[in-house]
């Protein structure tokens, strides 16, 4: 369980929030604190006030994969293969292991054909998929994705969903503006003005939003 308690940081104001294992979609208007919350869970930001505990440990002690909402800010290295290999090399994994793992995760992410390409020449969507492969290469316990689907076509979005579902990450936490994607999460958290205003299963959350544009269009059409 991920437990947040008395969080005050920037716009965020969360007295208490528990996130169970599984796939959790965080939704909400622009500027509502989604990225701030994700950074706190990922251990990138320490809250000014409050605490985060993941399975009894500090976020800093957890192997976490992270995807920034700015695709260019995920990429550090010149070639795609070096980029995906970098987390393994930073922890000094043996070279043969690194090569095999890079090929395996690249194949899963559908980016094998990009391994020799320069990262600067990738399209926006390709950058996201390469960054996802990089985030997953160490088999993290927690995978945090900040609007990674906003540059993806439906086929690539399905790849992203499949990859995260099949990953060994116990917690996959992602924010999105695609409510159709959010309906496929195990739980949904709605942030508004820094506050958690709704949380629960997609059915529980969206059933209270039928008058809002957040309500999935496919649900409206199937009424």
């Amino acid at each position: 369980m991920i437990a947040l308690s008395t969080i005050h940081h920037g716009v965020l104001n969360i007295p208490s929030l528990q996130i169970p294992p599984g796939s959790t979609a965080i939704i909400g208007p622009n500027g509502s604190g989604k990225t701030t919350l994700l950074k706190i869970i990922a251990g990138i930001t320490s809250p000014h006030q409050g605490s985060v505990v993941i399975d009894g440990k500090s976020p800093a002690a957890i192997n976490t994969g992270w995807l920034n909402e700015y695709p260019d800010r995920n990429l550090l290295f010149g070639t795609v293969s070096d980029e995906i290999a970098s987390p393994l090399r930073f922890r000094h994994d043996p070279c043969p292991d690194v090569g095999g793992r890079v090929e395996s995760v690249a194949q899963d992410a559908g980016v094998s054909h990009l391994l020799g390409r320069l990262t600067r020449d990738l399209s926006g969507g390709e950058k996201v998929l390469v960054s996802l492969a990089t985030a997953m290469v160490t088999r993290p316990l927690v995978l945090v994705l900040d609007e990674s689907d906003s540059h993806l076509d439906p086929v690539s979005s399905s790849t992203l969903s499949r990859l995260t579902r099949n990953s060994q990450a116990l917690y996959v936490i992602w924010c999105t503006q695609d409510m159709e994607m959010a309906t496929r999460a195990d739980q949904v958290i709605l942030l508004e003005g820094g506050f958690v205003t709704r949380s629960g299963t997609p059915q529980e959350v969206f059933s209270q939003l039928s008058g809002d544009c957040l309500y999935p269009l496919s649900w409206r059409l199937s009424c």
Partner: protein
Amino acid sequence: MTLTFEEVSYKRDQFRFTANGIFEEGVHLVSGLVGSGKSTLAFIASGLVPPGAGSVHRMGIRKSLLSMQFPEHHTTGITLNDEIRSWGLDPEAILASTRLFTRGEQDVNALSRGELKRLHLGCVLSADADLLILDEPFSALDCREKRVICRRITERGYGTVIICTHEQTWLPPVDCIWEMKEGTLVSCGRVPAAIPRWSLAPRHIRDLLKRGLVPGNISPESVMEVACRTRE
């Protein structure tokens, strides 16, 4: 105002781009898979990248403007006011229209990505351009802002607008649909006849087509209209 791609081709490493087609005045949607060449089309259409072969003709287009996929690639100002002035626009009016009212002296980098996109599009849509090319205008925006952008595109009422996007729900009414398929520009034609030929149509539209229903356009309102009509 007509933009014509005549036997245009472009090559980068293994990637090949080819385009033949005429973008007449109106709103054009370009969809395509990741890496299919939508951004390349946008850059060539704007004149920022010259074609390797063939030619691009801009008839009656005095000014063209490209909104790049990533708003952070556009920023030149330190504060929001600086950024808006760099577009030659009035900060007060843009801050009001983008609902960033009191934030003019804040650092642009302190905005969330969605807010930055909102500011950027507020500037782009206020600029006077005959040819407007919007590369992924809806990414990072929440549904309320997507609706605002759709409305502003619709209300613009002049010139040629080319929208390259993966957006599946919040789309404005368009005149023509195009697809990029592995680097090749393919015309689906004018709406509504183009909709059944649109291979990358959003799932909810494909579901309607399977039921024999063709919406009048691709906006949520048009989709709801055809779906509700059959329920009556």
